[in-house]
């Protein structure tokens, strides 16, 4: 599978990454290389292998429905470039 410049531009846009125009072609070549390397896995026959979701035989841990966190609004907004009355304040988002 090869990745072209158009795909890189689109992925960058969706991820909100600024990729300079002159980096698109080299990036496409690099990503294509990575994809091809990963594609080697297709050589293995996995028809009768269960998908592996964890390297150790573990089950999803479930916690009890108890309030154990929160109550520190000032800390939550502490890193925000702008806040007021413990709200985050961001540039106007208009639908």
């Amino acid at each position: 599978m090869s990745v072209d410049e158009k795909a890189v531009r689109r992925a960058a846009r969706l991820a909100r990454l600024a990729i300079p125009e002159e980096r698109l072609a080299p990036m496409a070549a690099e990503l294509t290389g990575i994809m091809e390397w990963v594609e080697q896995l297709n050589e293995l026959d996995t028809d009768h292998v269960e998908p592996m979701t964890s390297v150790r035989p573990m089950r999803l841990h479930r916690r009890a429905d108890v309030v154990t966190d929160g109550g520190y609004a000032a800390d939550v907004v502490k890193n925000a470039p702008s806040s007021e009355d413990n709200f985050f304040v961001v540039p106007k988002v208009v639908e």
Partner: protein
Amino acid sequence: MSEAKRAKTIEGMTGPWEIVIGLEVHAQVQSEAKLFSGASTTFGAEPNANVSLVDAGMPGMLPVINDFCVEQAVRTGLGLNAQINKVSVFDRKNYFYPDLPQGYQISQFKQPIVGEGEVIVDLPGGESVTVRIERLHLEQDAGKSLHDQDPNHTYVDLNRSGVALMEIVSKPDMRSSDEAAAYLKKLRNLLRYLGTCDGNMDEGSMRADVNVSICKPGAYEKFRETGSFSHLGTRCEIKNVNSMKFVAQAIEYEARRQIDVVEGGGTVNQETRLFDNKAGVTRAMRSKEEAHDYRYFPDPDLLPLELEDDFIARIKASIPELPDAKKARFVSEYGLSVYDAGLLVAERETAAYFEEAAKGRDAKAVANWIAGDLFASLNRDNKSIDESPVSAAALGEMVGLISDNTISGRIAKDVFVIMYATGEAPAKIVEEKGLRQVTDTGAIGAAVDEVIDANPAKVAELLKKPKLLGWFVGEVMKKTQGKANPQAVNDLLRAKLGDRIGE
């Protein structure tokens, strides 16, 4: 009922059209803590007070699933008679928005926790239709953006961020705005019976995305036969409609809009729209260019959710009697009409009130009092049945007083008003106000004689107008301050006036 002629047609310039509707309902799970963090779900807290570092999307924070939210989703699935999937997977749905600090929503995409089910929807006319459920999945809610605090800025509160939602997706089985509203009502009722969502639409606990398309008569039946959406028109999704009334309005407007577009020679674009409830119109929300590509992938922070058989069995055993079963029982056990039974089971609290009041009483009479005087008074004062000044036991007692002839039905109306105003017990009111029904024929007879003697002209008229007897009954009731037993009054009048009543 038959599925044949359910669709309401809309007349266009080129002939009749039909509507096809599917609903995606977001129902907030009733739980103490959030889906993946230990922060509280309480509504109306100070800004960002119910936020943990997980909900704020801080680096290095890991989600840990709330067992009770899982239980609630399974309980809802069982209430929808749906397939419970013993293995389900959480995925990341990626998009950027200021109220989504993680940069993705944890949701379920390919493998939801609940699969296909169905809901029996009761229509206002007394008929019912089946709406098939496609799936139910668990996901995180986003935060809240306030756009009206400042002309140049948006304020973001993350209290709702990470609260568990159940997204309940129906198949495109609804054929009119009435059916869509009735479906939403039934779903809300069901969730409240199950105790899995408070159904409070004002607080945003339930919101609907409405999918609407139009087609020519006959096309929908072809879709149902083949399962191919090619028989239906292009659908538009109206996002985040938060009341049953607005759902109905949005559908009516949107169907008309699509008909006008198609008949004007245009094509309907598949798009997301917003319902402006002040103007009563839908508007395109996102341009096509920005069409969403969510790049779903399994969340590497979460293993698949595996449900144990005994976990599901335990939940199944805890499910209360649901509205459909309760309605059937009210009909068979209490002899109520299907209509009255439907009215009483529409809210779990009303059904409980009825059963308490009807214990050992005339159940039909109790149902009539609840549906009549009690509902009228509660509606007038905007009160829920839980806030009723007349307790279920007191209403039952009052019906008992009517049944044993202590008071007449007419006097009971007055007693009810006093009970509602003061909260006092009916027997006490009857004693103190001297409202006990007069059954003593001597006393009634005296009143009857007085009325006959005072109105010779009316007595003469009786021969031509036998209906005048009612007037005599009324006069006697007045004389006895309504306390005379109406049947006794009637009997005595007939006995005394006898052959002077015309046929």
